[in-house]
């Protein structure tokens, strides 16, 4: 099943990627993939383990070079001049899975400033960006002068994400940014990403296994299966095909399943509910309606 999206801010065109070419461990991760991410929105990239999501992410900012095919930003091949790939990396920010390990500086502020400093910005600009990034990720001012190794896991995560946001990339790719965090931490980090996207008009791609998170925070969803584009659309368009999702090893958000159960039990609060917020309102409407009916 191959739907193609054309145009878009950043796209892969007939990209094939093989790991360890020329060794007995050679493995094709992506085979002739074409997909495109719309500009100015948050796209959620889903797919079960080994579907090629992380490879796609690293192709987008030039950490991996396609074995064949092209990666384009605004229609321009990023590998046109391999010497300028570093500039591409400044334009496409990449937050890896469990990015805490990348912290190394003496203080949080210095660590966040590492990316902007590599860009060769002026000190005053760097400082402004560090404060900006700290605001998006909810890091308090007193935190900035601490050593990153003193912080808790959740705070380290914020520092790592802030380190990328401080480069103010027009395209921000995050691989499981909220994995392993508590619910409040998830909300704050994902909310901060949304804020960053709105304020900078950035294009954001979030890779996640959490249907719940993506249903709330992503504008569009893209489902990858075995290295190919399987489905692309709004959360409604994706989640209404429950059977299809099951085929590729994914499922609908828990709240959707819960509402289906409710419906089966005779409490029909309506279809197409994918977030807890929607469910809350639907149930309220349902009971409100019943109450008025009873009166």
């Amino acid at each position, binding site marked *: 099943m191959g739907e193609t999206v054309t145009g878009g801010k950043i796209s892969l065109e007939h990209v094939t990627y093989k790991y360890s070419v020329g060794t*007995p461990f050679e493995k094709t991760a992506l085979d002739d993939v074409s997909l495109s991410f719309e500009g100015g929105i948050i796209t959620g990239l889903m797919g079960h383990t080994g579907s090629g999501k992380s490879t796609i992410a690293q192709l987008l900012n030039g950490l991996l070079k396609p074995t064949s095919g092209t990666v384009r930003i605004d229609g321009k091949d990023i590998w046109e001049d391999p010497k300028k790939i570093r500039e591409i990396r400044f334009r496409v920010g990449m937050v890896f899975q469990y990015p805490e*390990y990348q912290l190394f500086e003496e203080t949080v502020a210095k660590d966040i400033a590492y990316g902007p400093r*590599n860009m060769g910005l002026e000190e005053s600009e760097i400082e402004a960006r560090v404060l900006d990034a700290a605001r998006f990720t909810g890091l308090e001012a007193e935190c900035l002068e601490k050593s990153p190794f003193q912080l808790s896991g959740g705070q380290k995560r914020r520092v790592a994400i802030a380190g990328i946001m401080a480069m103010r990339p027009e395209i921000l790719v995050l691989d499981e940014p909220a994995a392993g965090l508590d619910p409040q931490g998830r909300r704050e980090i994902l909310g901060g990403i949304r804020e960053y996207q709105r304020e900078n008009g950035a294009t954001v791609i979030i890779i996640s296994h959490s249907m719940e998170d993506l249903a709330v925070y992503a504008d569009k969803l893209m489902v990858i299966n075995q290295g190919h584009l399987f489905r692309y659309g709004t959360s409604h368009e994706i989640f209404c095909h429950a059977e299809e999702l099951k085929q590729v090893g994914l499922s609908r958000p828990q709240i959707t399943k819960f509402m289906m159960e409710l419906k089966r039990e005779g409490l029909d609060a309506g279809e197409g509910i994918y977030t807890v917020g929607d469910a809350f309102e639907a149930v309220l409407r349902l009971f409100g309606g019943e109450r008025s009916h009873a009166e």
Partner: protein
Amino acid sequence: MLSDITLGQFFPGNSPLHKLDPRMKIFLIILFIVTIFCASSLLSFCLVLGSAAFLTILSRIPLRQILKGLRPLFLIMLFTAILNIFWTSGENLLWQWGFVKIYAEGLWYALFMIVRVVTLIIGSSVLLTYTTSPIALTDGLERVLSPLRVLHLPVHEFSMMMTIALRFIPTLIQETDKIINAQKARGADFTSGSLFQRMHALVPVMVPLFVSAFHRADELAVAMECRCYHGGEGRTRMTQLHLSGRDYLFLFFMLALFALVLLCNSVSFW
């Protein structure tokens, strides 16, 4: 990039060499090295070279893999060959220019030196590193060295340390790759600038690498203690090593090679 390093890496397979007892392999490799250094005539070198080729074929390791392992030593070989060519004196002068004299013996020595290094590398990698899993290797070493326990040497602890070190090399390589990628994504530049700048550029890689290595070591120690690890005393093994007919066959082959080489040393061709 970093994962391309192959010297001393286990190459999974099912060849007769893979199935040899690691203790026997350690013994065989020592015997092979002695044989290589005993060889001194053209015929015996041909024998050594032939048996190295034979072992390579037996191991079913692709030739390309073996050549890749030889590449880093190319410079050393070239250097020793040149030294041998120019500094060996003998009776058969081939060419002279001022004080530079090249003797036939020099050429021969250079050639022998190269054959020695090449067979040494091929022999040890094919016999041991490519065909023995690190676990089997340290297991074999522990057994071979176990008589030293009489001298109160902590043989078991040494081999456990080696097992752990070997086990974590690929992990650390992966980790390094991961950190390098993460810092590259933040615009780190490892390939340009002066030597000092490049060394400085490695700080963002080294710091997280050390932090995570210590972290890992800590976790591993706790995990081992949780499972009541307390050293080698009274410890039994999951896999017992047994010498089979195959092991003795290879031993016979290696001893025969040794004897043949000694015999052929007296046959001179030049």
